[in-house]
């Protein structure tokens, strides 16, 4: 293609040609250039949209179709129309509602402390520090750890008998907590895994935003006699508001997806039901159990759509809260 490339879009024919032929070739060639300029951007972004269409959007719509059919893992190619049976089946299942509540609760007790700690940590990292890159890398190491590894180590830490946490706690006289089997303690354990993995990452995102706050804002505040705490609250936090909203959205979506942590918390076969009392069963676990363990893909697809509905609900709440915050700031 690029072997014979004269001056691009040149109005005059290339040297060496003669008569009408190069003139004709010139317009032909300039038309090719135009086509190249017109089509290239679309060609460059096409791979993304092709991949997303084939493996993102199409399956998303297809999920809706499956949710209205009976599809079994054992015979994937046969399906039977059942209307809204799958939806009534899961909506009448108390385990589904347990999973919804669990997902929501774990989402809150993992996201809120995580983002607060990340904010504080970012504040610390924003000081002039010796070996600042070292500290940043250290707090980011959990991010390099896979869900599976993190969940398995914490499974040992939270173990009822012989767990390292209970051993530490027995020094203050409360060393007999059965973390995995408790209604709340199991949720706390899962949240700790999430908090451990993501706090450093969020702290770096906040740090980046903090460093983008113009220095003169702080100077102006300190001239007005603002204490450091006041500066943090009145200058740093408002400047970070878009970033904070962004991390809230991302963390919320992330907590909707919790799967590896509950699956591996207690090891063995308890994971696929989210504990013996479903005490830490999340929606992803419920979906997995229905579709892959029990082999009923129809209800599993219905669960996926229920998750979509929940996400939209959360997005709506986020929007309202965000608007409220902006209004109260103004």
């Amino acid at each position, binding site marked *: 293609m690029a072997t014979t490339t004269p001056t691009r879009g040149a109005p005059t024919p290339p040297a060496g040609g003669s008569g009408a032929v190069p003139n004709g070739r010139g317009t032909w060639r300039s038309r090719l250039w135009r086509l190249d300029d017109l089509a290239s951007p679309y060609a460059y972004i096409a791979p993304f949209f092709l991949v997303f269409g084939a493996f993102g959007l199409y399956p998303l719509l297809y999920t809706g179709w499956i949710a209205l059919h009976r599809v079994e893992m054992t015979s994937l190619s046969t399906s039977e129309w059942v209307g809204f049976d799958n939806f009534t089946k899961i909506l009448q299942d108390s385990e589904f509602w347990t999973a919804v509540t669990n997902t929501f609760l774990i989402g809150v007790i993992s996201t809120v402390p995580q983002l607060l700690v990340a904010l504080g940590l970012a504040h610390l990292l924003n000081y002039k520090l010796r070996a600042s890159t070292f500290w940043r890398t250290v707090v980011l190491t959990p991010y390099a750890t*896979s869900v599976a590894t993190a969940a398995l180590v914490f499974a040992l830490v939270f173990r009822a*008998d012989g767990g390292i946490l209970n051993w530490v706690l027995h020094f203050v006289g409360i060393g007999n907590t059965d973390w995995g089997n408790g209604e709340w303690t199991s949720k706390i354990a899962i949240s700790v895994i999430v908090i451990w993995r993501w706090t450093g990452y969020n702290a770096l995102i906040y740090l980046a935003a903090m460093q983008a706050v113009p220095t003169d804002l702080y100077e102006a505040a*300190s001239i007005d006699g603002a204490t450091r705490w006041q500066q943090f609250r009145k200058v740093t936090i408002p400047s970070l508001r878009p970033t904070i909203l962004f991390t809230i959205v991302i963390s919320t979506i992330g907590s909707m997806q919790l799967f590896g942590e509950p699956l591996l918390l207690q090891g063995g076969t308890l994971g696929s039901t989210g504990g013996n009392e479903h005490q830490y069963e999340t929606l992803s676990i419920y979906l997995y159990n229905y579709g892959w363990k029990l082999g009923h893909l129809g209800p599993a697809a219905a669960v996926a759509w229920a998750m979509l509905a929940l996400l939209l609900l959360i997005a709506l709440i986020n929007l309202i809260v965000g608007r409220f915050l902006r209004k109260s700031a103004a």
Partner: protein
Amino acid sequence: MTTTSPTNTAPGLDPVPPVASPARNRVRLKLGAGQQLKGGPLTYLALVVVGLGSIFPLYWTLVAASHDQQRVLDSPPPLLPGGRLWSNLQTAWDQAHLGKAIVNSVIVSGCITAATLFFCTLAGYAFAKMRFRGRGALMTAVIATLTIPPQLSVVPLFMMMADIGWGGKLESVIFPTLVGAFGVFFMRQYLLEALPYELIEAAKVDGATNIRIVWNVVLPAARPAMMVLGMLTFVQAWNDFFWPFLALSQDNPTLQVALGQLSASYTPDQSIVMAGALISTLPLLLVFVVFGKQIVGGIMAGAVKG
């Protein structure tokens, strides 16, 4: 965080009226500027605590992987590495087919990283520097796809993969993640500033076709960001769990899937599981030790306009 208490650590910030001597005023300005505050001993103390919290679980993976199960679950638990590391690693290796899992993980992460780098740079360049109809709307669409969790489409995805003969194969894990929205956004942000229009124009005047411009101008300019994106993508692909766990079969797993299966067996031996965890984490930790600075920089750069 206690270092921020205004009364005892920051003399320049006590509520003295602003009509102080110029010298004093300068001190105050210096302290007031967020970036210039020096960390005191309490700051370092807090960072050490957080740092230890970040590192300890990984250290304890090593400890647990180097004892036998009985010792691991003993009270008090072991806090120093023992002598069984090698034999535990070997057992884990044999039990969970880790050899094959490692090869699979390398193939999957390698393919995803290479494809992501190429396609995301192309798309990022188009969004950053080329003019075309619908650019703004399409970029918004790219960002919007970030909010769709994979859970919503795994059921049909599984059926599709079985249908086209990729069921249980690595293709089923590689293809859905060939090019991601984050990468497109990341490369766009970088190229917006790193690639001057003059360079592109100059190449055009020289008669270069668009694909030639990509090859000779864009790719060299994008190289630093591609390094970072490559590492971030590799980490993510290597650690991916949900979809690979559903899609891959027991005899053809990635490392993470093998690890999950090892733990989900009926009576897992904890120190063997930890040895497997160690094997799956070490390569990434090495990457982190060597390229930590770039990865940190990459995450922060990607965040600024996020």
